[in-house]
């Protein structure tokens, strides 16, 4: 089977020290990377995501799950090892950062859509679908500052999930809006998961993981502790981190 994402021996550390001088030195490579001065987020992680599978990633807060997704999306370049992807990745995370207060809903569709890497033609063709899904109706040509926070979240989800990428990376975007919309956005993401060939999902919702994931990886302190059957991995998670 082909791999959609190959993560080979990836390590990533974040600088702790924020001094200008030491920052310049380390950028120029004149300073040895010492472990005390940086925070190691990922330690030699190797992970292959097969084409067509739904892979879940679980772990405590700060274990490196989100960082790993961001490495796969190209946001962070690994300090060691390499990452390769087959096709366009799309990271669903913090769906409201691409939106702007002063623009109308329609303008925000173009703005956020283009930030996500879609073309104008794509966004024009998805417009009706986004209007319909986000349930914003008459507000759609009003500036975003007149929207309620639920409406903003709905618009964000509607845009972010409108276009199917080859590889979908999801970082805890469920759970916005009122219960009805939450259920609707869950359904939307589930149908996106079903129609997208490859999905990597970070979530704390273990019930959802058991339901939709083919495999689950448990990340602990920047390393992959185990990977395999969802139920097994979730059991290991509780063994390592303590019971609920």
């Amino acid at each position: 089977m082909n791999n959609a994402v190959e993560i080979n021996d990836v390590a990533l550390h974040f600088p702790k020290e924020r001094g200008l001088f030491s920052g310049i030195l380390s950028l120029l490579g004149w300073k040895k990377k010492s472990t005390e001065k940086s925070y190691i987020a990922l330690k030699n992680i190797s992970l292959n995501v097969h084409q067509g599978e739904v892979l879940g990633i679980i772990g405590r807060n700060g274990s490196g799950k989100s960082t790993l997704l961001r490495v796969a999306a190209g946001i962070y370049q690994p300090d060691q090892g390499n990452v390769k992807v087959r096709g366009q990745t799309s990271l669903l995370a913090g769906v409201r950062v691409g939106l702007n207060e002063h623009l109308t809903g329609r303008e925000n569709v173009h703005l956020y859509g283009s930030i996500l890497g879609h073309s104008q033609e794509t966004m024009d063709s998805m417009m009706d679908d986004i209007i319909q899904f986000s349930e914003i109706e008459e507000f759609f040509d009003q500036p975003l500052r007149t929207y309620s926070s639920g409406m903003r979240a709905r618009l964000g989800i509607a845009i972010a999930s409108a276009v199917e990428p080859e590889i979908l990376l999801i970082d805890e975007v469920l759970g916005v809006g009122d219960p009805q919309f939450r259920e609707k956005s869950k359904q939307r993401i589930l149908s996106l998961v079903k129609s997208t060939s490859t999905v990597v999902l970070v979530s704390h919702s273990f019930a959802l993981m058991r339901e939709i994931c083919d495999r689950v990886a448990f990340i602990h302190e920047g390393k992959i502790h185990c990977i395999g059957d969802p139920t097994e991995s979730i059991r290991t998670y509780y063994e390592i981190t303590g019971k609920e």
Partner: protein
Amino acid sequence: MSDDLPLVEPNPSVSIFGGPRRFFETMYNDAYLIRNLARRDIKSRYSRAIIGFGWTFLEPLLLSIVYYALFTILAGRPDQLYPLHVITGVIVWGHFGKSLQASVGSLTKGKNLIKQVYFPREILAVSPVIAQFCISCTSLLAVIPIMIYLDVKPEWQIIWMIPLGLFLSTILAIGVGMLVAPLNAISQDVQHLFKFIVRAGFFISPVMWTYEMASDRASGEWLDLVLLNPMVVPITLVRKGLDGSELTIPGNQIGYSITFAISALIIGISIFKYYEARVVKYL
């Protein structure tokens, strides 16, 4: 299906010499995104003001009145064309200063976006400058009533002097801004330093004074020193384009300014592209 797609690195690193090419490819391929970000910047700047877009005219006009008064107090009665010269100086310098600051702070300002989506980050350094360019071009229309009042008619040279002057100040701002934007991501001291440089640069650039005033008083090395400032030529070009008078800056100095701006742009892009991926971790 996606079986036929190759395995590629999502954000491959760029060699120090590969930056400019990648930059211009991005400018072409991501024009839709750049346009949307520039529109966002323009709209959000004036959307909560009643006078709104009128501020693009009002700001340089009001500033010019203040400088005109200040100059009259300090140096006596100025030249008849001085109001036109001062407002052009204010607009071109303002364009450069605001573009530079926007470009320097681009990575830090866009950090929420950078951490959520990958897209070529040079877009963040360029799009606010494009927005500023549109605003500055509109501001420049404020000179028309002054020209009518002073009865100044531009000569044919307006068609190359104004575009060249604005172009040089724009690429200079982008170049210097991109050169230091990665440093600013490490420490925001850089941003404060550039705020100071823009304020101090106002005095050593021909904003309140003109190149002719400098060449009347200084000569030889002193004048050469004044001309080391790469903003002297752009501001003077726009002024000459408007008042139609002869350009007295020597040709080699103009060549120096053009070379300076283009080199700054190329070096800035190369440094930015080379370090961009590494400094994202500091955000």
